[in-house]
């Protein structure tokens, strides 16, 4: 291992965040209970600090630590998304944790470490590094999901997530070991070189490839590895759900993309149909089961399964267009999902979180602002112009059409029409019914800011996307060390 200055500099954002996260944990006992929000602000400051560091690395393509770790525009883009998502999550967290009485200092530490795990994932140049990143993220998330220790549902969710996550990790690790056994290397570029050889496609490589795919599919909650999602999303504290559903998924997609496009692009034909299978199943299950949900968190969980299905379509064809489409999709998805969960967690009925769809009845009469913001997020998730979700779906389906999978795009469009039903149902509930119960919607300044930011981004990405399009286009280069 070579700890030369270049390597250290390249991983500076991760190092900063790890050190600052540790300081956060150490500081926690010394901060009085009513000053806990300072820890949150400290966490935001750390993230901004790391963001600046990452910004300094922009445009550089560096394989670090003999290729174990990669810093390239692609990973920097995902890191920026991770920072942004985490910051928004913290903005939502501060008042939420207070109200739910789970304001513990470790929360921010775990959130930061989870972010570090995701950063390691998207920068991994080696399957072992990748596995470490995934596990770091997952372990933090297991804890965060079970944060409401006194609530049965939360603990159950945490435990389920942990066991199934361990199961998936085992499958993933088994896949890695098969790949290593067949090729003698666990670096992504080494695998790519090995797979290119004719005759390299032994059953062992294929089996390893499929098992790693299962691991990723579990992390992005694509069907049929989605079973944990509704229970965990429902049980977890809503901020954590938002964090997992948005930032966690984005990171998982980043690494999914890197492994399959770099390591296995030579045998694309062998996994195309598996991806199609996963995409169709996810779109079907996500959109159809969401129709009958009564709990909005569960509904959003199924919606996120459906969205995973749409996004997976972007993986089909390793081309610049698909890459752009997928990155754009994830970028928009982050904001609209976080925003939707944000509304859910601010809404309270008699002091309890308003997470039943019933709680949204007639919201427009009482809180026109909340209803309007929710309308933006729902329309965007459904893919209705002029919101970002529309362009995101448009780019994904265009990429599919250009890759020769017009029929898949048609299936996708049809299923997103099915999906539009339950999103618009929420809007209808809010606008066209008379309110029954008193629902409170009192965001404080931070929540207002976060809601405004997510809503504004959702709208801007739909009507004036060009600055972001340019930014994503400059981040398209995947480094192949």
């Amino acid at each position, binding site marked *: 291992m070579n700890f030369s200055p270049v390597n250290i500099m390249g991983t500076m954002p991760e190092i900063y965040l790890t050190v600052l996260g540790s300081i956060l944990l150490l500081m926690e006992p010394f901060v009085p209970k009513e000053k806990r929000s300072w820890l949150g602000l400290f966490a935001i400051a750390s993230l901004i600090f790391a963001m600046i560091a990452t910004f300094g690395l922009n445009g550089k393509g560096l394989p670090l630590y003999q290729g174990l770790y990669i810093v390239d525009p692609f990973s920097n883009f995902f890191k920026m998304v991770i920072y942004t998502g985490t910051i928004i999550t913290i903005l939502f967290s501060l008042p939420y944790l207070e109200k739910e009485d789970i304001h513990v200092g470790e929360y921010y530490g775990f959130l930061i470490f989870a972010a570090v795990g995701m950063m390691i994932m998207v920068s991994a140049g080696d399957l072992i590094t990748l596995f470490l990143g995934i596990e770091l993220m997952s372990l933090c998330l297991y804890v965060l999901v079970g944060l409401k220790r006194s609530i049965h549902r939360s603990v159950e969710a945490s435990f389920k997530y942990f066991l199934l996550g361990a*199961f998936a990790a085992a499958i993933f690790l088994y896949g890695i070991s098969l790949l290593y056994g067949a090729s003698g290397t666990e670096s992504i570029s080494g695998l790519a070189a090995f797979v290119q050889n004719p005759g390299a496609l032994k059953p062992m490589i294929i089996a390893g490839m499929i*098992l790693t795919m299962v691991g990723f599919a579990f992390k992005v909650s694509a069907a*049929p590895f989605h079973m944990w999602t509704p229970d965990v999303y429902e049980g977890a504290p809503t901020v954590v759900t938002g964090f997992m559903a948005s930032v966690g998924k984005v990171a998982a997609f980043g690494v999914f993309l890197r492994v399959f496009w770099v390591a296995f692009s030579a045998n694309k034909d062998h996994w195309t149909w*598996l991806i199609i299978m996963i995409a169709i199943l996810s779109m079907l*299950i996500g959109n159809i089961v969401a129709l*009958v949900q009564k709990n909005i968190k569960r509904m959003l969980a199924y919606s996120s399964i459906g969205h995973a299905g749409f996004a997976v379509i972007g993986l089909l064809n390793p081309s610049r267009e698909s890459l752009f489409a997928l990155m754009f999709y994830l970028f928009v998805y982050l904001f609209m999902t976080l925003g939707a969960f944000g509304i859910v967690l601010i809404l309270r009925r008699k002091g309890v979180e308003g997470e039943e769809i019933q709680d949204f009845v007639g919201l427009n009469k009482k809180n026109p602002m909340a209803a309007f913001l929710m309308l933006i997020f729902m329309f965007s998730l459904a893919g209705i112009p002029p919101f970002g979700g529309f362009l995101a779906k448009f780019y994904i389906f265009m990429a599919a059409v250009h890759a020769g999978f017009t029929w898949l795009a048609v299936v996708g469009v049809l299923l997103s029409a099915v999906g539009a039903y339950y999103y618009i149902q929420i809007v209808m509930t809010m606008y066209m019914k008379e309110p029954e119960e008193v629902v409170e919607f009192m965001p404080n300044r931070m929540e207002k800011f976060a809601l405004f930011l997510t809503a504004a981004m959702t709208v801007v990405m739909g009507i004036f996307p060009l600055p972001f399009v340019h930014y994503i286009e400059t981040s398209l280069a995947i480094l192949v060390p």
Partner: protein
Amino acid sequence: MTPIIFIPLLPLIGFLVVGIFWPFFKGKGHFIAVPLMIGSWVIATSEFFKSFTNPPNVTFVYDWIRSGHLDIGISLQYDHLAAIMLFMVTTVAMLVHLYTIGYMHGDSGYDRFFSYISLFSFSMIMLVLSNNLVEMFIFWEAVGLCSYLLIVHWYERRPSWLAANKAFIMNRVGDFGFLLGIFLTYSTFGSVSFAEIFPAISSHLHQTVNIASAFHGSMNIPVLDLIALLLFLGAVGKSAQIPLHPWLPDAMEGPTPISALIHAATMVTAGIFMIARMNPLYNAAPFAAHVVAWTGGITAIVAATIALTQPDIKKIIAYSTMSQLGYMVMVCGLGGYGAGIFHLLTHGAFKALLFLGAGSVIHSLSGEQDVFRMGGLRKYIGLTFVTMLIGSLALSGIPPFAGYYSKDLILVTAYQQGPLGQILWMIGVLTAVLTAFYSFRLMFLVFGGKERFHSDQAGHGGHGIHPHESPWTMTVPLVLLSIAAVVAGWAGEHYGVLEYLAQELPIPHQDPVAGGMSDSALKGLSVGVGVLGIFVAWAFYGRESSIPGSLAKGLSFFYKLSLYKWYFDELYDLVFVRSSFLIGRLFWQELDKGVIDETVNGVAAFFRNSGLGLRRYQTGQLQNYAMVMAIGVFGLVAFYLVFNRM
């Protein structure tokens, strides 16, 4: 950053500020909207005078869509055509803003009204500045929307919203054609930007398109003709040409400033502007150009005959607008785009003047619109009388008023375009007689003769109604517009408006075989017919006379044809509305309830049931979840193996 961007930006700010914060203004919306509009006018005017020396320029604002080869941006194309249009549009818009302060005073929707006319001004300015078809279409729709919103300003009145719906629906037909035209343009040229379409036209001259291919037939027509016709369909709707015209007279249900601004001076001229803008296309599509010319000619005369007998002061002016629009469309179809735009500009001035004057008349009589219940108003509202007289003289084409120069130019241009042009010229001359007649019929009935409003009003319990002159905010625009109606035509000819516009609009060459009358003879003739029309109007209505009554009896067929507007409304009601209801009822009862509802409900039920079914797998049991995952893994492997065997 050029100052041009502020021309649309200022009204937009006005709309946003007044529109968003309207509850706080409480009848003071004009403090924001009017100064901003005046600012926009000042910039437009100074830029117009600079445009004589400055080269045309395009200001890029932002890229809206970029996908593959499709690149749609919002840009401001400022050339001579746009400059002179903007000058007229902002002038009229500014004066109408001013006029509105007085006319709408005390209206419950005062601030809303200001926000909408600001939005309209912004949209119209952007339409004029468009540099591609999609941008033009967006603002084309936006002005249509504003028109709808403003017609329905008094939304609690049934005729208002009926008229608004009529305008909206009829325009839908035209806009659908416009949209198809844009699609066909894009598929033919691969671009929607004017700068890229025009140079490419010559390479598509002989390209044809089979419009019967969907029916396995073969009916090839030149693609340029088809594009031009489809785009023209949009213009037919927007500029109220036959057969999509009945919405325009009904749109007079809206407040009078709207009639002046939108339904006389600016929005309805968008169709003519579009044809002028697309002139390279129409020059290359002779068949389409003929259709354009004939549509315009027929509209001009039909509308003029309807205007002869209408009792409602605003409807008379509305049909006159339609007829004048017909003139412009006709001459554009004959290649005289410059003449069309020239008439558009002068018409904008004197028709806005007539409408605002009519508004002043209506205002002075507290809402009376029937010309037969007016009369003798000259001594009460003298200023309005003088200004409207100027407007009517301009409309009748009497020198030296503006209409003389531009209408004469249209007739001369038409006459010089060979046999077709001469037929249309005859229609034009006939229309000119009728125009002078109905204009002065209105003048004599409203301002001359006995005072007929007393007796009628007394019946309604309104004893001793005293017509009063309007406040200065209303009369100042009248005076300014009447100055414009006097000088605009002379200035246009003196400073060479055709040569100025020749930058974008080529001057048509004279048909060599079209001999016959000389220029001065033509001019004399058109003045002569104007005077003739006025004289006949005086003979009928300027003195005690039984001619109108006996004529109406003697020629009752023609009288009724005119009074009932050639039965267009009845025809449409029969053909479209009733049959739509009939078909609708049929579909609703048989197809909709039977087939579609069953299918839709069936699909919905299917998905819902599958959702309910699938949900059952979500047992909450950990071991089941793990089981599904394991099945998933084996399933994927099995799928791979099976798939690779194939």
